């Protein structure tokens, strides 16, 4: 499978758009556990982004490390601290 522009740049733009939306959501949600989960979603979209850019090794690591483990530890901490943030 090679990378050529005519088909995929719309798909590429879609992923980037979703990433920006997840990023803004993660920062503005009041509930910390929900913003932790949205950060996990953000990492998954990043992993999609890497696969789309033909960076397969990186996508694999991002999926395993970025999406899975960091989401687990962020959610674990979010449950440990006060659940509601002021801003």
């Amino acid at each position: 499978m090679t990378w050529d522009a005519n088909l995929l740049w719309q798909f590429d733009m879609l992923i980037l758009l979703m990433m920006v939306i997840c990023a803004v959501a993660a920062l503005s949600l009041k509930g910390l556990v929900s913003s932790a989960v949205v950060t996990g979603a953000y990492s998954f979209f990043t992993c999609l982004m890497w696969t789309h850019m033909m960076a397969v090794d990186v996508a694999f690591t991002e999926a395993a490390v970025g999406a899975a483990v960091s989401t687990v530890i962020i959610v674990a901490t979010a449950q440990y601290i006060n659940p509601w943030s002021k801003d």
Partner: protein
Amino acid sequence: MKPFARIILFLCAVMMLTATVDLPDWADPGSPASTHLSPGFIEQGYHETATPNVVTAVLADYRSYDTLFESVVVFAASLVVMLVLRRTSTGTSRIKHFRPKREGRDTILRGAAQSIIPVMQIFALYVLFHGHYSPGGGFQGGVIFGASFILLSLCYSLKFAMQRFKEKMVLICCACGALLYAGIGAVCLAMGWNFLGYAGLAGLLGVTDVMARSHGILAVEAGVGITVMAVMVSLYYDLASGGDMEEGL
């Protein structure tokens, strides 16, 4: 201070966005990055290290000094988290207050876990040892192996997982993985080549230089895998239980 910071950020953003004009076009094969070093890796990589996956070759051989320090960073992270958080339990910890109650909804989870975890660990080993030919390698394999233990502790309980993978063992694995990696480098040094020059293993293993490099990469990937696995588990143990290893996520 806050509005002041916002204005500066906005100005920097506008300035840098307009400046992207000068960057080379996206994805053009003639860009400097694609014509200076990378072609060298692709063309000579296979002949010198006999590993089709060029990323693993560059990661574990050409820039193995970087990856050594990267596994040391991961090791340092588990050390710091353990130093900062680890303390003996002080009775009523705050976890209970915020964490949702778990009333006996574990049967499905436990059933699924029993079947997934062994497959997951085998897949992790596959990913680790097939780093040469398919995407994957030390980090990815190690994390998936670590994730299997985290899944175990999520479905059962932290105590249950800790009986299988004791905290002392976790710390020893962290250190031993990085020691294995640095040890291989030292062995190459002892054999007269420079630090992390896997060609030095040729004498030991009785193979050609190229194959020695390939086996060197494999051994190094194993070292990294062990460290990363142990670190992910140790991070989870400390962070999920708030440091007193009482009650996980």
